[in-house]
């Protein structure tokens, strides 16, 4: 049984930013996510861990409806953002993805300048009235992403010419630029070296508290380093949910223990 009751006790009084209720995801005949109930909080970084194929990335992609584009994918149950069902008919998916931003495994800057990469979102969402306002948003976003000082003199260079770590932080700046409330990260450091990884993790620390952050990672140590809550998935089920320190010192479930300690299970 998932350990949700314990977490609900720990977060009494706090309103969840997102609530996942009895969510099932199927790809055709494959039942990838099975009846997940989970609350995500504004002040927390939540790490989703588990072996490949456990459903963690599938669930992550449901949180801003990235699975909509997959033809045979069906999502049941409800996912609420500030109490509002994100799968409701009246929801504008473009607006939703501005509120729930995403950073992918491989840095994927647009083949445009550094400036335009960050300015793209604010432009299409009409967040800036003039060029000065747009400049401010771009600078503030790059600053928050810890990239401003590295790129301020080459804003007109192609984003794709930056190093891998810088590209990933550019993607984070791009997500931040449209004032998201939730940031989803799908293995954001898997293609980065340890120094670039440390920079992205430091950035996650900086951003935590301002945004609800959900990170999928295969690195146990990364989950332990950056998150306050950890969720362990196995075969589409949520096996355990708890404070990260508790999960990594005294997991309650044997399957969690076997996975994080690298045992046969």
């Amino acid at each position: 049984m998932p350990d949700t009751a314990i977490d609900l006790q720990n977060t009494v009084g706090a309103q969840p930013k997102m609530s996942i209720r009895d969510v099932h995801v199927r790809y055709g005949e494959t039942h990838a996510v099975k009846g997940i109930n989970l609350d995500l909080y504004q002040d927390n970084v939540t790490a989703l861990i588990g072996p490949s194929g456990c459903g963690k990335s599938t669930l992550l992609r449901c949180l801003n409806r990235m699975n909509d584009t997959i033809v045979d994918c069906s999502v049941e149950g409800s996912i609420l953002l500030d109490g509002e069902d994100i799968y409701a008919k009246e929801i504008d998916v473009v607006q939703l993805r501005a509120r729930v931003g995403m950073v992918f495994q491989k840095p994927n800057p647009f083949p445009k300048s550094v400036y335009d990469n960050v300015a793209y979102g604010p432009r299409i969402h009409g967040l800036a009235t003039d060029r000065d306002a747009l400049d401010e948003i771009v600078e503030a976003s790059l600053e928050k992403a810890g990239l401003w000082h590295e790129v301020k003199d080459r804003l007109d260079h192609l984003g794709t010419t930056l190093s891998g770590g810088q590209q990933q932080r550019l993607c984070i700046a791009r997500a931040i630029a449209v004032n998201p409330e939730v940031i989803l990260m799908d293995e954001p450091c898997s293609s980065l070296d340890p120094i670039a990884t440390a920079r992205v993790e430091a950035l996650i620390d900086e951003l935590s508290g301002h945004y609800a952050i959900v990170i999928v990672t295969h690195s146990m140590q990364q989950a332990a380093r950056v998150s306050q809550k950890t969720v362990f998935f196995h075969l589409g089920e949520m096996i355990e949910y708890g404070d990260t320190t508790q999960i990594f010192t005294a997991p309650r479930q044997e399957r969690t223990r076997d996975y994080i300690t690298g045992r046969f299970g």
Partner: protein
Amino acid sequence: MNQHILRTYDDELMEVRSVVVRMGGLAAEQLADSMQALRELDLDLAEKTRQADKKLDALEVQAENTVIGVFARRAPVADDLREVVSALKITTMIERMGDYAKNIARRSIAIAEGKGVVLMPPLLDDMATHAHEMIQDVMDAYVKRGADEAIAVWERDEHLDNMYNAAYRQILARMMEAPEQIGVWSHYLMIAKNLERIGDQATNVAEQVHYAIMGEFLEEARQKRDRTSAEVFEGH
């Protein structure tokens, strides 16, 4: 518990466990030898016991190095993390037990070489037997991963504390009766204290064993029955 996918990780943890168990066995042996030396005023055995403490010190260093290696290479979590952290603390505790046994051996030499030999009060033998059993039982709990057995050892410390209080009063009475023997009785008093401290260390080991197995601390503070400091204070 299932094996690690990396077998060398299991080997390293096995080495840590093996050092802890060897240390526990040596500490128990040192205690038994030091008490025999005291009982029989055997200077050779006392000296041998003092020297044996070096083995414990060396094993503690070996355990430390192995555990540091595990931290550096494996970044242990969950049960593995608790196991190596506990091992690090347990080896320090066992090393302290060895120090207390060494101190008993040293005092037995002083008593044997002193003027007017006074035989050991039998209560000290009872205390030593109890402390020895606590060491053996806590090491059994460690090997078998028995949380209940660890709690049982933890609970038995109270009895040793009571024995210490009785020994303290008895020795104090002897000091008053025969002030000329106060030197030798002081040694016996300190030996009683050493035995009581060995029990405390075995209790601490029990707490660590429980933590390593269960992942939770034995929070409840143990009611210490050591009332001797209050008596000294009141009777000054």
